[in-house]
């Protein structure tokens, strides 16, 4: 059974706690993305799974077997590294063959496997080249190839696409996803790129300062963030998170005071909130509708700045010295200085308490 399970995993470097009591489970055929800003402990977590780093406390199970005291080479894992880690003096074929040495295969079998992997990753033409003669994308494919050539229990990827340019990254994302879905193993991918996580993962774990903030499916992590950190971290452009005060509660319809404006928002279901308390409200830039008239259910503000994003524009709206952002279609013909009215889309407004935790009535 190809599974990875972490129980209360902690890693301290002196006083610094890099990974704090992390518990996770990756099932067979599941791709878990560890997502977070740099220095949040995601790579350290991965390295502990690989056995390259020794955990301070906690347990690691691979295929339901406790591997705490096993050496890296005995854990039966494969890993692709951020900087590819190709042996500079060996050719692509020799690099691919390296993981097979421990398996005592005949040279024909090794050759067969190399060609198999070379076919999957389109490396056929470059098997005799050395790493320094390869383009960045080719190096990356060789690194993936070296990971998948064996039949290990699980796969680990450390920032696999971070060194590629945007176009290549898009292409490789699809390719890796395809390869991974064919392998049907538990896979952990570490990344700081949310797009990478949202597209490749079946499950995302968002990390901050060594703690797991939320583990959910890619859709849920975007649509139902558990706290302001996840809400702000996932999604581009970033979610608008504003202070608000509750003025009036009428079942699911709540009247809020936001940026000195009173706005009435329908939350669909009643929420467990108190009148006159302050909260955070989160609205994504794409969750606004442009409306003609200023009404009780919309914001009104002055266009301060317009950023071009191709087919869309990012509008900075200024209300009483505060700025928030909204994405609108180019066809709306907005100009700096216009007064516009924006209505939050129904069901796309998030409300958080002052500790940053979401308030949700399911």
């Amino acid at each position, binding site marked *: 059974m190809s599974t990875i399970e972490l129980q209360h995993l902690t890693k301290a470097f002196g006083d610094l706690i890099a990974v704090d009591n992390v518990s996770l489970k990756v099932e067979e055929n599941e791709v878990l993305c560890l997502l977070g800003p740099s220095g949040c402990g995601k790579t350290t977590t991965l390295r502990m799974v*690989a056995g390259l780093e020794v955990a301070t406390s906690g347990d690691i199970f691979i295929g339901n077997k406790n591997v705490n005291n096993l050496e*890296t*080479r005995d854990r039966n*894992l*494969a890993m692709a*590294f951020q*900087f590819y880690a*190709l042996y*500079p003096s060996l050719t692509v074929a020799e690099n691919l063959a*390296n993981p097979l040495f421990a398996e005592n295969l005949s040279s024909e079998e090794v050759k067969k496997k190399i060609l198999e992997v070379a076919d999957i990753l389109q490396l056929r033409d470059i098997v005799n080249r050395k790493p320094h003669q390869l383009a960045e994308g080719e190096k990356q494919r060789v690194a993936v190839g070296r990971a998948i050539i064996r039949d290990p229990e699980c796969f680990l990827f450390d920032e696999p696409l971070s060194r590629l340019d945007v176009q290549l990254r898009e292409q490789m994302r699809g390719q890796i996803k395809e390869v991974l879905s064919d392998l049907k193993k538990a896979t952990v991918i570490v990344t700081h790129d949310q797009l990478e996580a949202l597209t490749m993962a079946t499950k995302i774990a968002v990390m901050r300062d060594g703690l797991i903030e939320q583990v959910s499916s890619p859709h849920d992590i975007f649509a139902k963030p558990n706290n302001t950190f996840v809400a702000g971290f996932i999604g581009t452009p970033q979610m608008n998170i504003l202070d608000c005060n509750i003025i009036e509660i009428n079942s699911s319809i709540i009247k809020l005071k936001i940026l000195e404006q009173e706005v009435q928002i329908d939350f669909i279901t009643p929420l467990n909130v108190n009148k006159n308390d302050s909260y955070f409200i989160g609205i994504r830039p794409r969750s606004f509708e442009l409306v003609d008239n200023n009404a009780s259910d919309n914001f009104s503000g002055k266009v301060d700045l317009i950023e071009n994003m191709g087919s869309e524009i990012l509008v900075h709206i200024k209300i009483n010295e505060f700025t928030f952002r909204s994405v609108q279609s180019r066809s709306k013909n907005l100009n700096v200085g216009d007064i516009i009215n924006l209505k939050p889309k129904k069901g796309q407004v998030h409300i958080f308490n002052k500790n940053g935790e979401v308030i949700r009535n399911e």
Partner: protein
Amino acid sequence: MKKYEKKAIGQSGWLWTSLASFVAFIYFFPVLFIILTAFRSRSDTLATPPKWFFTPTFENFYHIFFRSMANSTEYVATGFHMYFFNSIYISGMSVLLALLIGTLAAYGFSRHPLKGNDTYLFIILTTRMLPPIIVIVPIFLIFRITGLAGTYTGIILMYTAFNLPFSIWMMKSFFDELNTEIEDASRMDGASESSVFFGVCIPQVKAGLAATSVFALILTWNEFLFSLLLTNKLTRTMPPAMARTIGGEINVDYGLLAAMICLFIIPIFLITYLLQNQLLRGVTFGTIKK
């Protein structure tokens, strides 16, 4: 049309090239003078002003190995070939040992740092801050008591210790520059710690090994003081042997000395020449983007 006088960046004209050549010539002149002296006959050597055109002779080179002693006219072997061998053997062995121990230690310091790693490294470096003359008396006594004085083992160990701090520091900087991901990758591929070291790290620091061994070799090859005090008639190396040839006599045989120097610089010149590509890579290591 006005001639375009400004030169492209990165180009130097003949003026600078000839100026640089002139400075280089000043540096090289003493060596040239010694080489010429080695081929002069005794009377030409002492001529003032120096004779620039003379009939070359190999007399001096012959006299290194066979010479008439005292008042006798008979030519006897001087045993100089033995000193030559001693120099090669002793510096070769001690450089090898220092390289072996130094590389292992450097790998340890780089990959498995001790608590207070930097302090250890600094202490190692401090051993090279003092001039050797300060420690020569205690070392001489230790060698006398332990019976190491005058033996190959003694002087080889001495030079190994002498070369170690430098080897450790130099090799550590090479190991520090390596991408540790490659080592991790080979661990994932099933390599043991020893095959990570020998199979992955060592091949990547070849340039470092070359550079370290050449620098250590030059230091050892030219070392005079320890050899003078810690070797005997049979284990003596070239520098004190040469000093004995010129010292003590009223008339120094400059021709003979020059010939010895010529022989003395050949091995080190050859090795440096052969390893120059590696040396350049070694010296510029880390300055180029990986």
